[in-house]
């Protein structure tokens, strides 16, 4: 009898512990609370794509996506260096965000209807516009996509590129063989070793691989034109509206800073600006930050940490990659970057 009772008690105890582990229901701003408590932002980035996210020889992360993480960390914690970067493959990235392994995903991720809805995610304003591009060996003498029928194409799994090229080649009545490898280094080296005739990815990713991964960069050419729309943006979980607002408005702050001439260097001086838009953004007047759960100086801290959007772009896409801004210019200069009103 005693044994029986002990067994019963054990089962009861075990089930109690399990029930006790029931997930906590969403309180106000769980992500913000967690980030503040941790004193560190956990940001999912690409494993290695020049211009977006790449670790240098000392292990320091650089890139446009990385700067977005830094700006958010600065706005929330007052210090752009309080970020832990988690390099993610194209397949792992969404589960990592959904499961809470990362606070935000700033990883060359295209906004699509499916990702926005079925994945339970929210995407901020696009921080980069690009489209599927193709790189081939120069000696093949190829100048346009129509000549790629029958080619072997190296492509990341689970990317929008994978679907784009399937649709593109089908619409042109051409065949191709996709070679699908998740690890970014392996994939690029498969192309460089000649396993594939073509390397396909967001066009903005190609110059970096051409410059740094090819033995002789001039042996390769990037074909003209983009073959899809790829608005890249930072994503967060859809169940935390406040955190979504924070990531969204930090990006808008960077756009507006460029438009209003606020730079990393002059941000302190600009606090005394006569333009009420500028002083409101920098927290010298009013308290915009409070409305999204942050301090007064949130935008000031973000700009101090990474500069305005134009500075972020130039830092990552200037020499040696030299990618022209094109549609990534401000709307006032004919581009698509449009900061929403800071009111």
């Amino acid at each position, binding site marked *: *009898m005693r044994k*029986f009772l002990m*067994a*019963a008690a054990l*089962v009861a105890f*075990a*089930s109690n512990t*399990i*029930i006790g582990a*029931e*997930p906590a229901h*969403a309180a106000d701003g769980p992500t913000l609370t967690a980030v503040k408590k941790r004193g560190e932002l956990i940001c999912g980035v690409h494993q290695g794509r020049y211009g977006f996210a790449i670790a240098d020889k000392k292990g320091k992360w650089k890139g446009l996506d990385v700067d977005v993480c830094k700006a958010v960390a600065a706005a929330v914690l007052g210090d752009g260096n309080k970020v832990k970067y988690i390099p993610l493959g*194209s*397949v792992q*990235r*969404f*589960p990592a965000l*959904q499961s809470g392994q990362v606070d935000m995903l700033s990883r060359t991720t295209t906004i699509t209807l*499916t*990702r926005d*809805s*079925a*994945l*339970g995610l929210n995407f901020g304003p696009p921080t980069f516009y690009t489209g599927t591009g193709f790189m081939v060996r120069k000696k093949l003498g190829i100048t346009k996509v129509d000549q790629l*029928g*029958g*080619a*072997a194409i190296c492509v990341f*799994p*689970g*990317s929008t590129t*994978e*679907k784009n*090229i*399937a*649709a593109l*080649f*089908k619409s042109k009545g051409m065949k*191709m*063989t*996709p*070679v*699908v*490898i*998740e*690890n970014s280094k*392996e*994939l690029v*080296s*498969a192309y460089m*070793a*000649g*396993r594939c*005739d073509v390397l396909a990815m967001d066009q903005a990713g190609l110059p970096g691989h051409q410059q740094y991964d090819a033995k002789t960069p001039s042996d390769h050419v990037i074909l003209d034109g983009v073959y899809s729309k790829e608005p890249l943006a930072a994503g967060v*979980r*859809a*169940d935390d509206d406040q955190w979504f607002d924070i990531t969204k408005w930090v990006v808008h702050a960077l756009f507006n800073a460029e438009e209003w001439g606020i730079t990393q260097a002059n941000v302190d001086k600009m606090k005394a600006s006569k333009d009420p838009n500028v002083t409101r953004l920098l927290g010298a007047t009013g308290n915009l930050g409070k409305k999204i759960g942050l301090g007064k100086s949130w935008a000031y801290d973000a700009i101090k940490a990474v500069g305005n959007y134009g500075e972020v772009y130039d830092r990552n896409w200037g020499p040696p990659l030299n990618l022209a801004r094109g549609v990534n210019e401000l709307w006032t200069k004919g581009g698509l970057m449009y900061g929403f009103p800071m009111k």
Partner: protein
Amino acid sequence: MAEQAHPPKNNRSILHSIAFRNIAYQLLLVAALAFLGWYLYDNINENLDRQNIATGWGFLNEPAGFDISESIIPFDSSQTFARIFAAGVLNTLHVAFVGIFLATLLGITMGIARVSRNWLVSKVASAYVEICRNVPVVLHVIFWSSIIRLLPHPRQALEPFNGAFISNRGLMLPFPVDNILYPWVAFALVLGIGGALIFARWARFRREHTGQYISVFWPGTSIIVGLPLLVWVLGGAPLTWDYPALKGFNYQGGISLSPEYIALLIGITVYTGAFIAEIVRSGIESIHRGQIEASRALGLRHGFIMRFIIIPQALRVIVPPTASQFLSLTKNSSLGVLIGYPDLVNIGNTSLNQTGQAVEAIAIMMLVYLTISLTISIFMNFYNKLVAIRER
């Protein structure tokens, strides 16, 4: 006192009954497991719901929208996720079964070579086993993948014999053009195998009853090869080869094995072969030397001793661990994902990412591997019973 020491049966509580306790404990365990299962299921659903993540199996009927590099069944990006999963399962089965076949051949050969009295042969086999067994299988696969990438481009492909090409795009071989006679040749082959089996049974029956030994190998082989050959020759011996030819980027025509397939196949075969070789060696060495000496004293030939004395007893030791090697080979085939072979995991990962339905995609993968593994287990258990020595 005496009454306390031996209480009458009808006074004993049912809780003291061993039969009751056995059942009660098992019921409790089942209840606990059922509760745990329900809890996990409910928890997953609640969390998915809370995060607005899509659930359900409807996505299987939607078009996949992406292509795969190789498939046994024809596949096109406008076909459904269900079909692309099927293509992935078939690719997994393809590499796993060919791998199991080749690893078994390699393992048996190397295992027997290891106990050979020829110094060079046994040392070569030992070196093979020790090197391949002690390197992680991931490195095997990546190693062969890198080696294949070093091969020349299709335009400078190696041509070992007329119509066969080796390049960094894989191995291209000529293949006979389909002919109306070929199904009949295949039918004759099946008949031939059946005939050879019947002959072997008869020979065994005869040996067990009369003690007269009839060799099965040559008559068996000639039935298996001869019958289809006869059908083919009588049908006019039709044979046209479809040669691979360089068109545009790559070779068209003939049959081709992709570099990813070859690298994965060699990697997992060589790795598992080393383990099977050790199992075969231990099986052979488990037979007491006295039996071999006794057989020799009776004047039996070496091959005869191996086949009728050693192997039947060694199989008892060999079959069960070999079955688990087959299982691990099948599961190791999922490493194809590293080098881009479109196996189940590769396709499952991509689908997971395109649809966002991680729970469903992973459940499918688990279920498929479970089914394949259980099927192999059942078959190997059946084979083990077949070869087990009946103790009399």
